[in-house]
């Protein structure tokens, strides 16, 4: 049985957009991190994570996303989330992720914001 998250990444200039589909646990989080670090290594300045097709992110997955955020911040980059369910949004706020990363209702708003921050 494999409940792991599927991840699609598209590079748009210096912005990498991630689409997740499924449960983000330790394996899903690590795969996002692996692909995020690869994007940073090849010059991405901003990462936009669209979680529209993810309904559950557990605390281990969030802890890995926090590590990704810290790496992006170290590089003076930008990390933005969009299309979160109310429960994921709430959990990100509980764990403090929302204090350091921007959260937008839609991908379009996230992309506009990271472009403006560039």
């Amino acid at each position, binding site marked *: 049985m494999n409940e792991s998250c599927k991840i699609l990444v598209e590079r748009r200039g210096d912005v990498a957009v991630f689409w997740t589909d499924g449960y983000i646990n330790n394996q899903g989080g690590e795969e996002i991190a692996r692909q995020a670090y690869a994007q940073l290594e090849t010059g991405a300045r901003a990462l936009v994570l669209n979680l529209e097709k993810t309904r*559950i992110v557990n605390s*281990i997955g969030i802890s890995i996303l*926090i590590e990704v955020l810290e790496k992006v911040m170290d590089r003076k980059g930008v990390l933005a989330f969009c299309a979160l*369910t109310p429960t994921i949004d709430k959990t990100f706020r509980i764990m403090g992720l929302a204090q350091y990363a921007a959260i937008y209702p839609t991908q379009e708003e996230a992309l506009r914001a990271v472009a403006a921050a560039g």
Partner: protein
Amino acid sequence: MARRETLRSGLEGSGAREVSLTIPVASDMEIVATAQVAAMGEYIQMPHDKIDEVKLALVEACINAFEHAHTRDDRVHLTFRVGRDEEDGPDYLEVEVFDQGKGFDHSIVEVPTPEKTFSGGKKRGWGLQIIRSLMDSVAITSGEWGTRILMRKYK
């Protein structure tokens, strides 16, 4: 609407409805268990966002049991209940997570904070905090016999 009327009659007639499930300590079994939360939540027509909150609380409770309890039977025992405190009160969905592990003293578990998490320090240990934040009531009892987490969310 007809389904709703049938449900009200059922809950009023005989109190809580209960379903039990035992899952092995194995990867992704916590997600299998969330299907029962969805079914019971839909049974009382709980809003989907609230069902999602119960699902995540269950996932966190299962992960804690998987990682820390060292269960004697290599299983986690789950009970799902829907019911109502008073005749005219709101319906609730209750989940009991029981493991026959080594137990722990939840009163001395360090409360995580975003500041500690983001200062390069410990990023794990958020499970109980998330459960308490998402559910309306949480009761934890633990000892050498194991740990029982009883958590309830009102519709």
